[in-house]
């Protein structure tokens, strides 16, 4: 008699043999996935677990036992009785040949390449035992596309794996990249083979993140920062985005998910910055101004939904793909731009500095912030940008290493007189600003402040809004605020945002939507460190760990609602006047306009 009470039928399984080992495995899995479960990581290049299947590179070949036939393990599902060999002299030779042929059509400049040491092609060539160049055929040559302020495209380094094309289409819904031409002369580029600058690119940098080589990179601004730091006429300050403290340690071999606030501040101070400020301050300020926008719209009965405006990749998408929605977007500048504006006005005045002497560097998880900083809306009346240079997390890590800062060996960075806390007043921040770095954080921060402002006397004010947390791409929730019920949504990855906009077009009502261009929000930004071994770009586990560090920062703050920040109170009292007032309006808000070429979603 059966004693099983489990109602759900067991998943169908098949029996296969991998390298002589008989296994019973879940049906419907690929050979590559099954091998991974038993501890064999078959070499791969074009494969990415979160993107569609390409089967383009053939590096993951395995041998069907007894047939002499090679199949791509990423593209073939297991079947009953299947027997494969992942390693044999023949299969190892075949993989090595494939990679040698790729290398033959690849520049021989590993020593001077930006990706050196972090390049998947380099690692693969090493692990497969490529030790000499056997082929010497023709080499493709295309012009370097370095006109964009954000993303540099170097087609000579492209191996046509198609990951960038897939991430741009499947995750971002931007479809900026396509394979042009055919065969040997195939070129991955925007439409018409044009420059990134002249395309529907939204500068999110996910192509940079998924590229296995250096065919896509951020435009480097490190030289300009070194030069400013060495210029005695410049007062060089740095602001650091919320998400950086959760990821910077990874660049030095620390495990993902650690909060590195203090070590990071001390290290940046050692680089020579006159002051190290926290972009969380600008994030708190954004919350105050944006929740006021929400409250005013609630009082006026619309227009709804209010769309958040912190993510510059999303703002480019808005202008290129969905200009109909421009009137719904919050006019708040991003936390970076708010902080920069105040550094060149309030801070410069209080220090008796000419704003042109102040050189503002922003360390951002983001490639698109370079584009945002260069926008004409974010410049002083004389034309100087409020933010002089944007460094990605990767660039900041490189600068610290290049300087020789011993980040890994020292448990704490203690540079005698150097303190490891952010400088005042842009260092006094709340937990609301901290969670800006993860998906759902901006929405939760705005709800915290709006809930406090809308609450009736004696009413209990909620602090944490767990219903908007999680790293998945699309969430909706209803929240009760001061007797009203608001329908809110969070989208990260613009393909998810586009789904929400379809709902909007179909008549569904939302009051507040947070949109972040990158998967997981800023913790998954295009400027974040390449993932540690065993993890991949877009890895939900990696995003969860990084977000966890930010929620930890939030919990550790004495104040967790943005409007309770004493730094902000001083700012409004001494300088801005009223939230939403005329000076705040001039300095903290911006505008958007349709931009070409028109994107198709």
């Amino acid at each position, binding site marked *: 008699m059966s004693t099983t009470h489990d109602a759900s039928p067991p998943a169908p399984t098949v029996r296969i043999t991998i390298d002589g080992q008989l296994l019973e495995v879940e049906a419907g899995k690929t050979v590559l996935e099954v091998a991974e479960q038993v501890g064999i990581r078959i070499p791969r290049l074009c494969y990415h677990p979160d993107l569609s299947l390409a089967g383009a590179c053939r590096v993951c070949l395995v041998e069907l036992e007894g047939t002499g036939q090679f199949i791509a393990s990423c593209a073939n599902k297991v079947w009953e009785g299947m027997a494969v060999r992942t390693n044999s002299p023949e299969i190892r030779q075949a993989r090595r040949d494939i990679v040698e042929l790729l290398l033959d059509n690849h520049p021989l400049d590993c020593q001077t390449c930006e990706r050196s040491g972090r390049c998947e092609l380099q690692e693969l060539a090493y692990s497969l035992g490529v030790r000499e160049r056997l082929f010497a055929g023709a080499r493709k040559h295309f012009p370097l596309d370095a006109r964009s302020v954000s993303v540099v495209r170097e087609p000579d380094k492209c191996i046509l794996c198609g990951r960038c094309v897939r991430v741009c*289409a499947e995750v971002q819904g931007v*479809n*900026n*990249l*396509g*394979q*042009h*031409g*055919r065969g040997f002369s195939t070129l991955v*580029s*925007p*439409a*018409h*083979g044009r420059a990134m600058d002249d*395309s*529907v690119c939204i500068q999110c940098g996910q192509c940079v993140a998924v590229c296995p080589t250096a065919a896509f990179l951020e435009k480097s601004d490190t030289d300009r920062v070194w030069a400013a730091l060495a210029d005695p006429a410049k007062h060089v300050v740095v602001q650091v985005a919320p998400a950086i403290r959760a990821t910077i340690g990874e660049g030095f071999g620390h495990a993902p998910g650690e909060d590195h606030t203090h070590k990071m501040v001390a290290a940046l101070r050692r680089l020579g910055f006159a002051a190290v400020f926290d972009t969380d301050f600008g994030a708190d300020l954004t919350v105050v*101004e944006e929740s*006021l*926008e929400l409250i*005013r*719209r609630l*009082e*006026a009965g619309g*227009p709804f939904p209010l769309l958040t405006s912190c993510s510059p990749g999303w703002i480019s998408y808005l202008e290129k793909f969905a*200009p*109909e929605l*421009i*009137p719904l977007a919050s*006019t708040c500048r991003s936390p970076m731009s708010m902080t920069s504006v105040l550094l060149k006005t309030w801070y410069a005045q209080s220090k008796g500095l000419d704003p042109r002497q102040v050189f503002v560097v922003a360390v951002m998880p983001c490639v698109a912030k370079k584009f945002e900083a260069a926008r004409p809306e974010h410049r002083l009346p004389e034309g100087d940008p409020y933010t002089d240079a944007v460094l990605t997390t990767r660039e900041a890590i490189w600068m610290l290493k290049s300087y020789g800062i011993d980040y890994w060996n020292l448990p704490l960075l203690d540079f005698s007189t150097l303190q490891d806390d952010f400088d005042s007043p842009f260092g006094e921040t709340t937990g609301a600003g901290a969670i800006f770095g993860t998906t759902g954080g901006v929405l939760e921060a705005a709800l915290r402040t709006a809930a406090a402002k809308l609450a009736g006397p004696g009413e209990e004010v909620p602090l944490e809004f767990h219903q908007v947390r999680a790293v998945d791409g699309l969430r909706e929730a209803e929240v009760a605020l001061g007797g009203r019920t608001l329908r809110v949504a969070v989208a990260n990855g613009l393909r998810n945002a586009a789904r929400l906009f379809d709902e909007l077009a179909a008549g569904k009502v939302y009051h507040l939507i947070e949109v972040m261009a990158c998967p997981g929000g800023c913790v998954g930004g295009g400027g974040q460190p390449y993932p540690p071994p065993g993890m991949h770009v877009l890895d939900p586990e990696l995003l969860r760990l990084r977000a966890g560090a930010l929620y930890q920062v939030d919990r550790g703050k004495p104040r967790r609602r943005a409007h309770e920040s004493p730094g902000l109170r001083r700012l409004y009292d001494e300088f801005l006047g009223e939230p*939403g007032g005329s000076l705040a*309006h001039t300095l903290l*808000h*911006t*505008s*958007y*306009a*349709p931009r070409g*070429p*028109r994107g*198709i979603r």
Partner: protein
Amino acid sequence: MSEVEAVMPSVAPAFDRQAELDRCAARLPPAAVEQIRQARRGPHPESALIEVLHTVQDAQGWLCPEALDAVAQLLQVPTATVTGVATFYHLFRLQPQGRYRLAICLGTACYVKGGDKVSARLQEELGIGIGQTTTDGLFSLEEAHCVGTCALAPVVMVNDRVVGPITPDKIPGLLEDLVQQDRQGGRR
């Protein structure tokens, strides 16, 4: 509403998507616009892409960037996909073509009968290479691979007309006839 406007500076003029689409439609031959309209009624409009590109090329002689953009917008297929397809197939022309497109057959029969010499003479007389167009926009040269009239080999196609057998010494006369025809406003 005044308070709302206070936090929304310089509101951009409302975006008019229909006007943008109308401008796209004006760049394409009506037959292509109609094909796109039909395709968008079905579940897979993108499957009509190649057919639409042929219609545009037949009407306009080549696929100019503006026409490719217009096809992308109206069919709602990403522009990078449209230009990716257009550059993949040899039969799509991405350069403006001469009023007389001369396609030299280099199929086996024509080749054996001296098609390569015909090709060399045409390039010499016109001062252009294969895939190029004369500066006056009159002639362009391309190669064909068997046009199915081997009995006439070697042949050259002039737009849709087969001319053959043709030998290198007949080339100057052929070109002179076409120049005269063009002056009289005729295409054939």
